[in-house]
């Protein structure tokens, strides 16, 4: 069954507009629990209380405040917040293009498929152009009263629009300093290189399964039938041997494994 579009917009490139529909590219598979009242085993509700008096504060009396320093707030009224909303627009404005490798993983937030909404000629022409130029567009748009910055990319035969994180929220390595302490020796570096090379391969996402999710679901099913298995406690572990010794042993072990596999 085809997915439902979450939003409609138009990619704006100069005077050309390419109408698109956005679809979430993510399908949530997290095991969802409900919070239950321990005694009644019934679902609970939430409300806001004044922690001092323990009294409930009804929704219409709740205000929103920005904490300027501990215990000091600037109240923002509903009117203030509405005024801060950007004017609604359908435009996905492309401000510039950058080479595809230039945006670090850190910036990507949520992926959306941008599917064609009518004009398929311009849509697939844009896909092809982005691929030929190995470029990705930096986009700005307003969706549901919120301002977004993002990246427009062609992957496979279609367009994807990623929301990117707010520049002021991301911490980059340049803001930090390398760890201090002893440096590894040349011998250790050579061995580590060897080790990593043995483990080198291609990224194949299908190889990785959320095994834990499967185990949790299996456990829930067993427990529902009244046959929950006993689970062993978790033991922490530690390693103490010298680094070059451990590296040598790792290489040896992996080589043996490779031979067996061959």
């Amino acid at each position, binding site marked *: 069954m*085809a*997915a439902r579009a979450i939003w409609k917009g138009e990619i704006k490139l100069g005077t*050309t507009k390419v109408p698109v529909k956005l679809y*979430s*590219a993510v*399908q949530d598979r*997290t095991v969802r*629990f*409900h*919070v*239950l*009242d321990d005694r009644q*085993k019934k679902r609970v509700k*939430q409300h*806001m209380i004044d*922690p001092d008096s323990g009294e409930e504060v009804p929704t219409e009396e709740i205000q929103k*405040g*920005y904490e300027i320093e*501990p*215990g*000091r707030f600037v*109240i923002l009224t509903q009117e*203030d917040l509405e005024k*801060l*909303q950007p004017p609604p627009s359908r435009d996905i404005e492309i401000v510039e*293009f*950058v080479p595809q490798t230039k945006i670090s993983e*850190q910036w*990507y*937030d949520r992926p959306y498929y941008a599917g064609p909404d009518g004009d398929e*000629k311009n849509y*697939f*022409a844009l896909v*092809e*152009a*982005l691929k030929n130029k190995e470029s990705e567009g*930096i986009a700005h748009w307003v969706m549901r009263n919120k301002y977004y*910055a993002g990246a427009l990319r062609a*992957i*496979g035969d279609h367009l994807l629009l990623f929301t990117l994180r707010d*520049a*002021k929220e991301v911490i*980059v*390595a340049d803001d930090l300093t390398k*760890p201090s302490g002893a*440096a590894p020796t040349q011998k250790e570096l050579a061995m580590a290189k060897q*080790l*990593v090379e043995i*483990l080198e391969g*291609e*990224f194949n*996402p299908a190889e990785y399964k*959320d095994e834990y999710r499967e*185990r949790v679901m299996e456990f*829930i099913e067993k427990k529902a039938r009244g046959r929950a298995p006993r689970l062993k406690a*978790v033991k922490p572990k*530690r*390693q103490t041997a010298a*680094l070059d010794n*451990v590296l040598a042993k790792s290489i040896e072990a992996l080589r043996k494994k490779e031979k067996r596999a061959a």
Partner: protein
Amino acid sequence: MPPRRSQSASRRREEPEEENSGGRPFWSGTLTFGLVSVPVSLFPAARSNRASLRMLGPDGQPLARKYFAEKTGKDLDADEVVRGFEVNKEKYVIVTDEELERLAPEKTRDIDLKQFVPADSIPPLYFERGYFLTPAAGSQKAYKLLAETMDKSGLAGIATFVMRGKEYLVAIFSDKGILRAETMRFADELRTPEDVGLPEKKDVPKAAVTKFEKMIATKSKKQFTPTKLADKQTDSLLKLVKKKQTKRENVVKVEDEMETDRKVVDLVKILKQSLGGKK
């Protein structure tokens, strides 16, 4: 749109947890490659929403979110609620924190780098959230060894591990000698164009493609400038806050001992300290 996290009875704060963690790592454990173990801590690589607003009462007092029993109206404390999975309508299986912890397969309690792949070969669709890794006291050398090796080879390490009741697929990158983990979506958490029902590729006239190629060429930049991503909406919210503060308009102050543990955490400072190996 932050990713939703699994709901847990023991976690019920409104803000993302990093905000209230008081500078403690998000996770501490062991990173391994081959038989080499590197004890590390994980810290978020992004600050929480800088325009985060608190809910206040009529007198400006900060409010707390509280669970209550619908039938009796009685407020419930953390030890009076449990986590239940609905197997049938209104029939739940209770799962405890301890059970969730014990269910994690032993091999997934560490970040075991079983594979290394070219660092730029992972499609951005997979990336979810970033964390910096800092070495535990005494593990700086092994940390540097891994970081330097990955830097030189241009590779990223891949692993799956369980953290806080959820299994994560992660890619570990070396960013100029600093290790960064990016949690990733599993393949079955991503939709394909067929799942979404997108139309198949159509052939288009060459002229239409060339037109876009020219537009791309004129608007191309060599580098990506993150400052262009600054959230204007958040900026104007903070500007308004400043204005009101100067005019002393709508400013409230509350005396509240509870506030002392909510002090603003400087993530960069904590990361620097942690990378320096200091406690």
